[in-house]
Every structure is written in structure tokens, then in C-alpha cells.
């Protein structure tokens, strides 16, 4: 196709899955465009230290993402970060993606690698007090709360591990969790329970945040009794898991009840020529290594698909 905006493959998403796919495809001399609405590296850039990526003893997540991007562009992939995507068409032999600036990109295959994002509570006051008492990152903002009392929301590994790490700074942590049990591994639960600065409010949730210029307290609802109580507090850290970035793909590709994309073993979706890799997929484990593996498989399957089109 004589179109400067035509590529063999367009990858939507720039985390480890998308970047790995870009490395494999561009190294195979396929014209590859990667569009990501965020920073190349994805959620990996939010990790201070990755110590379980084979072959690399320790690395900052931002650095690993930067190296992956460098590898992809060195092989010829075009990587566009912070790119707005306004619409796309995935059916048919030629797929198209329209960017926010009006540019239309086409390709024979598309790899979805849209990843996930931190879940927010979505209750009144959350937007108002973000950065003024509400945080989603203990390592970033923990020292602002030195000598203060805080709430940690969540019951998974992140919530309990971050609660323990925050006790370095704060005088008291109250963990608020919606269930009567934790989803975290037992060792994380045991460590939190053994910490004298940590107490627990189970079967409870935050109904709203209040304050003037900064957060002054939260309204906590007991999910068993329905009773709401005002709780004066200096800060709240929220760690309630991730949601897949698939809202705009609904109605296009097949998903499960959790809005995760359903794929075959070769990362193919229900649409011919459309593959999906990484944390947006329906799967149990989400690690950098699993995203990289997905990206590899999706790239090889997409290359196979394009070759089969040419053969036919």
C-alpha cells in the first residue's frame, strides 16, 4: 500500500508487552508503529526496583522501559509516546487507527498491549485531595506524612507491604479493607499483624473524603452494619489493585466479565489479525516477565499471520 502512514503492524500500548513485540517485529524487518497514550515502559516505570527480571540483578523500572524502547527504535520501530488515540477500526484485512492529531495509521495486523492502571475508589473528594493527603505511592509520598496518622486502603500484597513500609514514617496506620479477610499472601498478613503501629478495620470502606485546603478526614462505612463514622486522619494511601485499560475496546474484541481480553495461546483475539498481549489479557499472573512473554508470542503470531496473507 502506497501510504506513508501504513505499517505492517501497529501496536497499541507501550509497556513491556508492547515494547517486546516492537523489538521482535522490527528486528524481523516488519514496519512497526507503537502508539502509547502514556510513557513508554507502562506500569513498569512505576516500580522503583525490579529484582526478579532474569539476567538483570536489579534495575529501576523506568530504566528497563527506556532500554526496551531504545532496542525497539534501534531496530527501526517507530515509538510515539503520549499519543492520543481517538478511534480505530480492527475488522477487515487493513486495520486503521486515528490519532488525536487527525493522523490515520493503517496496518495489516494490530497488537493490543494496553495494560492496566491503578484502581481508584471513585468516591467524593478523591480528586480534590489527590496530592493533598491522598496518595497512591508510598515510596513517593511517605515522608510527607512523618509523625502523622494515616489510613491504607486495600487487602492485597501491595496494601499490606506498603502499610508496613509506611510505618517507617508515620505513628499509626489503619488498614481499611472491604472484606473480612485479606487477599495478600500469608507472610504479608503476618508481617502487618505483627507490626504494633498497624490496626485493622475489616468489612469497611471509605465513603468520602473531607477537608478544607488539605485532607482532614474520611467517612468510613461499615459494610456489615451500614453505619458511617467520621475518622480524622492526615493521609490516605490507596492500593486496591489494577483495572485493565480496555474500555474503548469493548464491543470490538471478546472480553470476560472483568473486562480482560480473551486470547488463544498465540495471543490471537476473536478478530483475525488482531492480537493482544500483557496485563489487559485474561490471565492469572501479571509480571514484567509474563508481559514480555506475551509480547514475544503476539509478535511472532502477527508475523506469521502477515506471511500467510502474502502467501494467499
Amino acid at each position, binding site marked *: 500500500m502506497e501510504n506513508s502512514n501504513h505499517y505492517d503492524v501497529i501496536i497499541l500500548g507501550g509497556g513491556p508487552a508492547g515494547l517486546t513485540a516492537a523489538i521482535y517485529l522490527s528486528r524481523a524487518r516488519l514496519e512497526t508503529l507503537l502508539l502509547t497514550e502514556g510513557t513508554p515502559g507502562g506500569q513498569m516505570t512505576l516500580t522503583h526496583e525490579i529484582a526478579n527480571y532474569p539476567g538483570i540483578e536489579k534495575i529501576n523500572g523506568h530504566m528497563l522501559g527506556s532500554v526496551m524502547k531504545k532496542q525497539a527504535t534501534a531496530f527501526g520501530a517507530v515509538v510515539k509516546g*503520549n499519543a492520543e488515540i481517538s478511534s480505530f477500526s480492527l475488522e477487515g484485512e487493513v486495520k486503521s487507527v486515528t490519532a488525536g492529531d487527525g493522523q490515520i495509521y493503517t496496518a495489516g495486523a494490530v497488537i493490543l498491549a494496553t495494560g492496566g492502571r491503578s484502581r481508584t475508589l471513585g468516591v467524593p473528594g478523591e480528586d480534590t485531595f*489527590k*496530592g*493533598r*493527603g491522598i*496518595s497512591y*505511592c508510598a515510596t*513517593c509520598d511517605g515522608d*510527607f506524612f512523618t509523625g502523622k496518622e494515616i489510613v491504607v486502603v486495600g487487602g492485597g500484597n501491595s496494601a499490606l507491604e506498603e502499610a508496613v513500609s509506611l510505618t517507617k514514617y508515620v505513628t499509626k496506620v489503619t488498614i481499611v479493607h472491604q472484606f473480612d479477610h485479606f487477599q495478600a499472601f500469608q507472610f504479608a498478613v503476618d508481617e502487618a499483624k505483627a507490626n504494633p503501629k498497624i490496626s485493622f478495620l475489616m468489612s469497611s470502606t471509605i465513603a468520602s473524603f473531607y477537608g478544607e*485546603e488539605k485532607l482532614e478526614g474520611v467517612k468510613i462505612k461499615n459494610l456489615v452494619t451500614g453505619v458511617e463514622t467520621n475518622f480524622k486522619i492526615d493521609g490516605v494511601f490507596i492500593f486496591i489493585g489494577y483495572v485493565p485499560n480496555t474500555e474503548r475496546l469493548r464491543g470490538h474484541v471478546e472480553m470476560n466479565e472483568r473486562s480482560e481480553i480473551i486470547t488463544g495461546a498465540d495471543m490471537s483475539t476473536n478478530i483475525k489479525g488482531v492480537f493482544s498481549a500483557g496485563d489487559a489479557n485474561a490471565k492469572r499472573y501479571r509480571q514484567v516477565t509474563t508481559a514480555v512473554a506475551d509480547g514475544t508470542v503476539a509478535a511472532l503470531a502477527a508475523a506469521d499471520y502477515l506471511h500467510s496473507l502474502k502467501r494467499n
Partner: protein
Amino acid sequence: MLYTNLNHVESAEQLEKIISENENVMVCCGRMGPMCIPVYGIMEELEPVYSHVKFFDMDFDNPEAMAIRNTPLTRGFMGLPFTVYYKNGKMVKATSSIQSMQQVKTILNSEFGQPNA
């Protein structure tokens, strides 16, 4: 030390000089952390587009960053990064914690005007 492709502000004196010599200035004051890196990335993307704005970062742990940390607009902030906007030498807007591309563009457009097509 901030490992970004932005120009760095190293001292309060340098910051004062920058905002006195440039009409529109955006400075992101943070660390190489999860909430800060995306904002640096957004600024790197926008720098060539908003040619009428000067973009800088500053290390939050540099003692000289008190020039940003301790101002009327940032005093209540409890989340990195502190992102500040100067018009004609005066701080006109400040945000705390991570911001999206759209949030940054909205502020740039309202405080400094849209970029030329």
C-alpha cells in the same frame, strides 16, 4: 539527579533568572519516582509543541528546591511531583502529584495560550 531530557534547574538563583527572562515557564519539581516520571515524559513530548513555553525540572531533594516547595501555592502539597507554572516571573498555578497529558495541556492553554498550529 534527574535522568530526564529536560533542562534542569540547579539553584534558586538560576530559577529566579529563568522566570525573569522568560514569559512562560513550567517546572516539575520531583524525584525519579513513579508519580514524577510520567510528568517528565509529558513535558518532553510537549516541549517541541509549546515553543512559547520553557520547560524545566528540578530535583525535589535539592535544598535549593525550597524556592518551589515553600510558596503560598505549594505549601499544603503532600504528593510528588510539585509542578509549577510561572507567568512574567509570578507563580500562577501549581499542582501536586501525577498529572495526565490532558491536565497539563489544559493548564498550559489556559495560563500561557494554545500553541501555534
